[in-house]
């Protein structure tokens, strides 16, 4: 699908530029004429929404950095200074803080869409892997960003999470000290996290470019999972999908704005309005909600396995949960991509989704009583889905007959 350029330079200047740096040709090929399956549903708009989220975070973040002071004595007050005294600061700060949560909402929806419609299957494995890398980097960026306001939950969240590194045998303690810049979370930690929090979004943006590049080789997957056969199956990206994506972005901005203007603190934690204090430990330390599913998996391993103690076991489980995502293209080898045509898969996918929400919920609960048991069950389901359900289903499941092409499928829908 590489030969779809209809660009002919109109003027001598355009011709001159096209011979030297064909940016206009590139934009026309990839942002306008790119043939896109015409049956994409609204779940497919979250890619564009995520680009918007990244843009919003970078723009608001750059402005916030102009007024923020990364010093343990000044950071907390400088955030309040932004909220109180900087022109438009309270909106910019709220957009950035709420924006992190909205980013993850869109990110999780985008990933679950990929998991349901089999978007990770050949020839799109690299797109998927790059996406998982973006997810991991975004988690790291968000985690470091949460330290910056230097509230109680910032400090203690960093303390708990950075302890993960110390579980690594032999070099763990050294890695932890390198990450923190000392033996405990302190001013060096705040400084390096601020620096990295500013750097990583640009790394993410670069990987997003690769993600889209890789996407533009085979083109989009689509809700029926049948490859594009000919021009009747597609429409040009512009204006059809630019318009649809823009509409979805505006729609997404409505709940976004609701939180920013009417409930800016509802997604935050009251404890983070108390300045960090290494002498006072909050009763329950809870990471941000988007880390909770993985936090639950980390905590679920509270028993030793042979020579692996529970702490290292938890870290391995949490890392394993991410590795599952990276290797999913080779776990699910079924030829049929879309969950729509997989009657058994559908149910397991629903279970997996509910299980993921349950993992999120359990991460916020104290590790006691029934929650401990549930966390173990949910963790087991998470891994069973990848390691047993997907490989087995892709071998034994009887799938429904696929439409021969996208255009046949949409015409069938129209005539039904």
């Amino acid at each position, binding site marked *: 699908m590489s030969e779809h350029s209809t660009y002919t330079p109109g003027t001598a200047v355009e011709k001159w530029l096209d011979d030297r740096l064909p940016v206009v040709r590139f934009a026309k090929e990839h942002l306008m004429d790119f043939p896109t399956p*015409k*049956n*994409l549903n609204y779940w497919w708009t979250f890619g564009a929404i995520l680009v918007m989220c990244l843009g919003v975070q970078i723009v608001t973040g750059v402005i916030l950095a102009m007024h923020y002071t990364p010093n343990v004595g000044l950071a907390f*007050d400088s955030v*309040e200074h932004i*909220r*109180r005294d900087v022109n438009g600061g*309270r*909106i910019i700060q709220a957009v950035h803080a709420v924006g992190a*949560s909205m980013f*993850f*909402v869109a990110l*999780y*929806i985008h990933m*679950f869409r990929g998991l349901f419609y089999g978007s990770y299957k050949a020839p799109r494995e690299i797109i998927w892997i790059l996406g998982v890398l973006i997810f991991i980097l975004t988690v790291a960026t968000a985690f470091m960003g949460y330290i910056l306001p230097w509230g109680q939950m910032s400090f203690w969240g960093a303390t708990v999470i950075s302890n993960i590194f110390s579980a690594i045998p032999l070099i763990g303690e050294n890695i932890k000290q390198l990450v923190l810049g000392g033996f405990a979370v302190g001013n060096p930690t705040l400084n390096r996290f601020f620096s990295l929090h500013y750097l990583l979004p640009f790394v993410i943006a670069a990987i997003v470019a690769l993600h889209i590049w890789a996407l533009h080789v085979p083109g989009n997957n689509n809700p029926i999972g049948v490859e594009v056969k000919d021009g009747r199956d597609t*429409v040009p990206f512009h204006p*059809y999908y630019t*318009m*649809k994506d*823009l*509409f979805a972005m*505006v*729609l997404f*901005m*409505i*709940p976004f*704005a*609701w939180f*920013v*203007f*009417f*409930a*800016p*603190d*509802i*997604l*935050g*934690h*009251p*404890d983070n*309005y*108390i300045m960090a204090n290494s002498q006072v430990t909050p*009763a*329950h*330390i*809870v990471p*941000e*909600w988007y880390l*909770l599913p993985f936090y639950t998996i980390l905590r679920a391993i509270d028993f030793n396995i042979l020579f692996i103690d529970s702490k290292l076991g938890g870290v391995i489980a949490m890392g394993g949960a991410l590795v599952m995502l990276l290797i999913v293209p080779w776990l699910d080898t079924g030829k049929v991509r879309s969950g729509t045509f997989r009657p058994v898969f559908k149910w397991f996918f629903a279970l997996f*989704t*509910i299980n993921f*929400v349950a993992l*999120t*919920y359990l*991460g*916020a*609960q*104290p590790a006691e009583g029934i929650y401990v048991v549930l966390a173990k069950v949910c963790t087991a389901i998470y891994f069973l889905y990848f390691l047993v359900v997907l490989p087995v289903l892709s071998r034994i499941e009887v799938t429904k007959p696929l439409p021969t092409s996208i255009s046949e499928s*949409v*015409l069938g829908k129209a005539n039904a």
Partner: protein
Amino acid sequence: MTGAIDMFKSKIIIAAFAALAGLASVPAIAAEAGPRPERQPWSFAGIFGTYDTNQLQRGFQVFREVCASCHGAHLISFRNLAEPGGPSFSEEQVKALAAEYQIADPTAEGGLRPGIPADRWPSPFANEQEARAAMNGALPPDLSVMAKARGVSDPFPTWVFNYFTAYQEGGVDYLHALLTGYRDEVPATAPEGFELLEGQYYNEYFPGHAIGMAPPLADGSVTYTPGEDGVTVPETLEQYATDVSAFMMWMAEPHLVSRKQTGFVVLLFLIVFAGLMYGTKRKLWKGIEH
């Protein structure tokens, strides 16, 4: 700092995810530490809520005459008291008020000078050590953002509804409950069998119940001036607690009113714009089977 507060955010956040992802239903969890503070009919609650200027002025009086003798509020400047959306004192009143305070300033002769509106609210103690020495070892926390630094835990499904009602008054509800949560017979206030150390008081709502702050308010302890229209408000503990809690909400969120005003414009624009976008999108896609 209670477990209940910790859970508050997380529960809420899961609700956002669940609601937005179209998935819901999570079981309720038990709240810890003390009864849930009763919800008060705050004038600033809900999406249409605004501050009551008179209440903020009364609250400021309580804060100044009672709270400020032990607590600081270092994020507040005198000038904030004259800004729109707050207690809205006049510039002259604020100037006169600031001048009543002596501000530490190494460049001034003798190290002290009268305050000006640009000065921050002066702290009652020079540092933590001095405060603890004076306060029987306890440290009176800064009150600048106190109304947002406390929260409450709601059982399911209330916390889901909180998203749609934009309920963010858990902190002030708690402050009001705390200020009115002392037992009557001071100092023998604790229930039988509850050990209180010297200088501690029993409070229904304080996590652990043993609080270092003596009951700060009592009926008649602050004298309110009647309004220009001759309207008086009761000089009761209940009224003081409500007024000063409202004032603390203003200190924590001084731009609440303008924030909501902007929000209405933004949301209205987005909804209309989304409608227009949808119309355009439909027109564009008309005739394309998809």
